């Protein structure tokens, strides 16, 4: 009845981990945005797994989580579009996409010292 | 009757899977862009066509069957157009060099 819930639950957790790692370590803002999308899809999948476990009354997947995911996907898409528009404008304006605001680009290189 | 339909499905889907395999091998083995493009589009469209053919007997209604064929036609159209555009870009890239 709840076919795949466990496997895809694990898959969702790993996707969240991947997205988090990418969001932290990728220096380019566009890569951060892509990583955010991976992270978001992991969260949505988790909703899907929760809904799949709640299959009942002849519906294969609890409709409430499904509806929440659809709302969430739309919001995430709008966020992506806004972030990309900001990034393109920044590039147009300054010729770079670095997010470091502190004076020189070198000043914001890694602190861990290697 | 059901057995005959299932046999047809198995045969057609197997053939389709084979073309997907052929396409992928072509992608991996062929040396330059144009030949790889050739491998991809031919094999993929034929592969999808055979899969669609295989699924037709399993379709629940006439409408689903038409939808399946429509899907195949749409991908054919896209494949034809896009591969032409890609090939043109590739050729221009070469002449530019």
């Amino acid at each position, binding site marked *: 009845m709840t076919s795949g819930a466990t496997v*895809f639950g694990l898959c969702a957790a790993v996707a969240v981990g991947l997205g988090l790692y990418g969001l*932290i*370590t990728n220096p380019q803002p566009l890569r951060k945005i892509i990583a955010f999308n991976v992270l978001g899809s992991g969260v949505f999948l988790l909703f899907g797994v929760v809904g799949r476990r709640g299959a009942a*009354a002849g519906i294969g997947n609890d409709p409430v989580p499904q509806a929440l995911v659809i709302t969430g996907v739309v919001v995430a*898409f709008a966020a992506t*579009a806004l972030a990309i*528009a900001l990034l*393109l404008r920044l590039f147009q304006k300054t010729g770079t996409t670095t997010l470091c605001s502190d004076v020189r680009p070198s000043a914001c290189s890694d602190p861990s010292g290697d | 009757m059901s057995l005959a339909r299932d046999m047809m499905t198995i045969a057609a889907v197997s053939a389709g899977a084979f073309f997907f395999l052929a396409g992928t091998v072509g992608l991996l083995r062929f040396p330059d862009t144009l030949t790889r493009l050739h491998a991809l589009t031919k094999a993929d469209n034929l592969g999808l066509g055979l899969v669609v053919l295989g699924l037709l007997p399993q379709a629940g209604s006439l409408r689903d069957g038409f939808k399946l064929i429509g899907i195949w036609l749409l991908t054919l159209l896209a494949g034809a157009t896009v591969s032409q555009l890609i090939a043109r870009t590739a050729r221009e890239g070469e002449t530019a060099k």
Partner: protein
Amino acid sequence: MSIATVFEVVLATVVLGFGFWTTAVRKTYSAAVGFVAYGLLVALIWVRLDAVDVALTEAAISGGLGGVLLLGAAARLRDSETTAAEAPGNLTRACAAVLSVLIAAALAGAVWLLPEHAPTLAPRIVANAWATSLANPVTNVLMAFRAMDTMLEKVVLLLAIIGVWSLAPDTAWGGRPGPCHRADPNGVLAFLARLLPPVGIVVGIYVFWTGADHPGGAFQGGAILASMWLLAIMAGLADTPATSRRWLRCILIAGPGLFLAVGLGGLWFGSAFLAYPAAYAKPLILGIEVAMILTIAATLGLLLAGAPERSVK
């Protein structure tokens, strides 16, 4: 282990493989391509989880419009790749990896510990579906039970448009978004852009219409319509409208506006805000959805087109 489980493991592995590729690959353009593939395969997972409404949305967004958005940005930002020299060091990476794994493990553990008999609202939704006489439970949740969220989400989309427009240079305010596309009117692209949109519009309306009783809905249909519009724009057959146009703004607020109006009607004449009188529930919901599909198509198209760049004059 049954073949179904093996298949699920394969699917999950391939999806995560692409997720990993997207995170690790060096070139941004490749990462964007990887993400398109990832999004498409996630749609497969949604079908497998028996959530076809979401699968449609995921296919439309991650596989289609979202991919185009990311690819366009990647192509345009290509020159900036070398300037960003802020790669974190190994210690930072190690910390990030450890913590990400920790969070993922905690999540996996939490999913594992979810109760044996999962709580669900599905029976309640089926029991109350009479109120709208729509057979698609997801549409019922979106348009009736949780209508407030759906309405506010449309306002979020509108704010995203305002945010994108606000990035226009002052000289281009109110102008047309995006660059001017020119293509040979007798070329392949123009041919496709004449052939595909009629088909696409039919499919878009079908996906929307079927959403009352089967998987589908205004958002998914709107996404298809938006992509057809953009195809015509890319082929040079149409241009993006100037953002100061009154008709465009009317379309952009038609969905949330009608939603709000019907909701207030419920407050005034009926039992509650956003309550539909049982006799008119279906036509009212469909009416809102018709307005919404227009709004969504226009909004998604304009979000992809970007900030106004060309002044009207």
